[in-house]
């Protein structure tokens, strides 16, 4: 029997890889993929919990997360298109509209 902790560790590692990708990549699409990665990491731990605690609620949550991820991807990609159209770039370090 694989211990629950292993899944959690796997989840943590994948999550952190996602965080690293988000923090360091310049390409906004890769950053988006990093976010998907993080969501998947969370999903892994939720499904694992659900399995080990014999409770369906974790999986219910996963379904909602996937739903939100789909919505987020749609909106986010739409924003990227709009952004690319206006700025002609997909590199986040070239955008600092919000500079104070």
């Amino acid at each position: 029997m694989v211990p629950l902790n292993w899944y959690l560790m796997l989840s943590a590692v994948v999550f952190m890889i996602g965080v690293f990708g988000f923090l360091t990549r310049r390409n906004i699409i890769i950053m988006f993929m990093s976010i998907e990665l993080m969501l998947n990491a969370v999903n892994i731990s939720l499904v694992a919990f659900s399995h080990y605690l014999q409770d369906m609620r974790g999986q219910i949550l996963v379904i909602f997360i996937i739903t939100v991820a789909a919505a987020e991807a749609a909106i986010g990609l739409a924003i990227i298109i709009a952004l690319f159209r206006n700025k002609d770039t997909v590199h986040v370090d070239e955008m600092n509209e919000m500079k104070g």
Partner: protein
Amino acid sequence: MSNYLLIPFLPLAAFLINILFGRKYLKENSHWVSILAVAGSWIVTVATLFDVLAGRVINEDLYSWIVSGEFKVSVGFLIDQLTAVMLIVVTTCSTLIHIYSVGYMHGDKGYYRFFAYLSLFTFCMLMLVMANNFLQLYFGWEGVGLCSYFLIGYYFDKKSASDAGKKAFIVNRFGDFGFGLGIIMIFLTFGTIYYEPVFSQAKGFASQTINFLGYDVHLMTLIALLLFCGSIGKSAQMPLHVWLPDAMEGPTPVSALIHAATMVTAGVFLVARCSPIFSLSETALMIVALTGAITSLFAATIGLVQNDIKRIIAYSTISQLGYMFLAAGVGAYTAGMFHLYTHAFFKALLFLCAGSVMHAMSGELDLQKMGGLKKYMPVTYWTMLFASLSIAGVPGFAGFFSKDEILWLAYSGSSPVGKFVWVIGTVVAFLTAFYSFRLIFLTFHGKFRGTHEQEHHLHESPKAMTIPLVILCIGAVASGWVGIPHLLGGGAHFTEFLKPVLGHPEAHGTHAEEWMVMAISIIAGFSGIGLAALFYLVKTDIPVMLTQKFNAAYKILWNKYYVDELYSFIIVRPAIWTAKNILIGITDARIIEAVVNGVPKGIGEFSRILRKVQTGLLQHYAAIMALGVLIIVAMMLLR
């Protein structure tokens, strides 16, 4: 017996009709409405007078005006002997002057407006004299002030006229300031502001003192003097007399009605009405007497040198009003009221005659440009001459009886300043005769000194103007006959009539003294006339010589003792200067606004530094967030 309500409300109705419909519909016919209304008032007034003569005094409330806790006041009417006299004076003068105005104001573009204001004035004046409480008196008081403001500034496109109107209103406000406080003090003292209970309780407070603004003062003196403040303003006494000469900017009928016969005498009426209060304070009476005496002397001296025909009469009015206060101040309220009554006729007549002259001279006011008008306008000349004889105190004319009574009561009364004010009064009688006849001689005698065009245009005024002159002239001559003193075999009916309201002071003198006082005043009058004749008919170079010799004195008189300049220097300019430079410039801009704008500015500076943190780069924010997560997780685990 409630048709007395028609007396004030007919003119009010006329005002409303004229102001609402005059401009579009009535136009040149506006005067009918007003004249009918005022004449109606006059008829009811006469009927009421007979009621009062029969001893019926009316004192009723119409409706409750203001109720706030203990403070209750109604719109109500008191018609007693004093009111009846005032009613007669007001409605008679008002009716005649309304008629006169038809001729005088003919063709003016604001015709309807003029009659509307005149009617409104009549209404307010009637409300003033008919009030049965102080607040309604105050209503009428302010109301006549307002009409005065409107009518002085009637030619509002002239700056001097609108200035004069404003000045009249504001100067009066200074007086009303005291008057209002006086009413408040009356309420706080008596718990009511109706005449009847106030006057009947007044004796009970005769020796009370109270703390007023930190000073212990005699209660009745305080109230009397506060009320007197109002009188000073309205009746143009020193030091608030400055508005009346300027008020001559208004049309002449207005000067006659408001600034001679009725409104300005309201101050005297107030003192007479409040005689139960004034009588309780010797100090207050003394101040009233001295104010009146000094004002009358002061104004008479200015009147000596002026050249503007209306201003001379205006100063004469101030001087005569001073006379009335002088009378009231020595306790001779009836004499003051008597003079008020006769003065209304001859002074209104003088103004109307002056108006007639102006009408002929196309608006010219300078005496030096007139002369010899006698042959062109005989009616005006004779009526004005009679008015001048009356004001100069020539025996038999109305002014003689009232003036004589004042002087005699001043001389013989118990007032501590009685003898002093008698001396002043006699001097003023001399001066009055002098300047009145100076005016007559310069205007009607000698050669015409105006332009050729003016001379060509000279004519007698139309009937609408001369008929009122004649009627008033009868009044100026005969109105005094109702008060011929016992000494001359008369019945002193006027005094007897008013006695129930005003009382009558005891005269402490012998018949011989009374004869002496009368003789002195007659001599003063005749010598004034004589001197004027000498200066302006016989040796016309004397005045010029005197002017040169006493140049400094002449300058002072010519500039009216520089009172206007003084006020401008110590009140008007400092107020505006303070507003501009200190309140706006320093308090508002440098202190309050500095704090108000300073706080946000400080916050702004702070955030300017703080905002450098905001790089606008997405990953910086994310990194800081991750760092935050790191710190929080570390803290939770390493705790």
